[in-house]
């Protein structure tokens, strides 16, 4: 299941949507907006998330199908929010489910690492004066993805 939404989501409801007696393990990743400093060393007010929705959905579906197959998951839920988010708000949720924990844990990490490198979302810091400051891709995220590409291919 994949959702790109403006509004927040409820963790318990999302868990209920994919829970099954067949599963012995669920792994959750929840990304939230943390306080950070802008390039000019001022506290950010929040973030703004831009998205190319049609492309992001097809990219997320590809990642989801890879995870389902590679780690023999029973389900993989990905929710990503867009628009203006305040500090502390939820950004992204990944839930993977499987019979045993090692599969769900590894798959969950793969999905969020892939999402950060391969899916059409762009983050901006929101500053005091209502201006937006672009957030740059991190080298460490790219390096981590190289490790996953060896595993998944």
């Amino acid at each position, binding site marked *: 299941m994949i959702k790109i939404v403006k509004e927040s989501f409820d963790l318990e409801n999302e868990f209920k949507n994919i829970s099954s007696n067949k599963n012995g393990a669920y792994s959750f990743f929840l*990304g939230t907006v943390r306080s950070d400093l802008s390039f000019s060393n001022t506290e950010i007010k929040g973030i703004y*998330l*831009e*998205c*190319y929705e*049609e*492309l*992001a959905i*097809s990219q997320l579906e590809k990642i989801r199908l890879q995870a389902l197959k590679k780690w023999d998951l029973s389900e993989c839920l990905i929710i*990503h929010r867009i628009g203006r988010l305040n500090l502390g708000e939820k*950004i*992204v949720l990944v839930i993977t489910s499987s019979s045993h924990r090692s599969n769900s844990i590894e798959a969950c990490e793969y999905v*969020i690492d892939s*999402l*950060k*490198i*391969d*899916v*059409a*979302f*762009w*983050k901006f810091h929101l500053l005091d004066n209502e201006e*937006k400051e*672009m*957030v*740059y*891709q991190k080298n460490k995220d790219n390096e981590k993805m190289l490790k996953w590409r060896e595993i998944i291919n």
Partner: protein
Amino acid sequence: MNITIKYFSWIRVKLKKSHDLIELDKAISFKELKNNLISKDPIFQEIFKDDSVKYFLNLNELNDNDRILNNGDVLAFLPPVTGG
């Protein structure tokens, strides 16, 4: 024929628009389209020089400058992504 171009992130900010509808008399290649865009706005020179920018044609990554564009095609110019 018409081609839509969608712009994202710093490209959208720099161009001050999220998309363009390009009207063409005949089918042209992606390379020819790039040259047309540069002649209209030098900002495109900066975009096309940036190796980190990816191009998508109808939701598929486009790496072929000689690819002929067809009526109704949707191109997208994507800087490195930063979701999650």
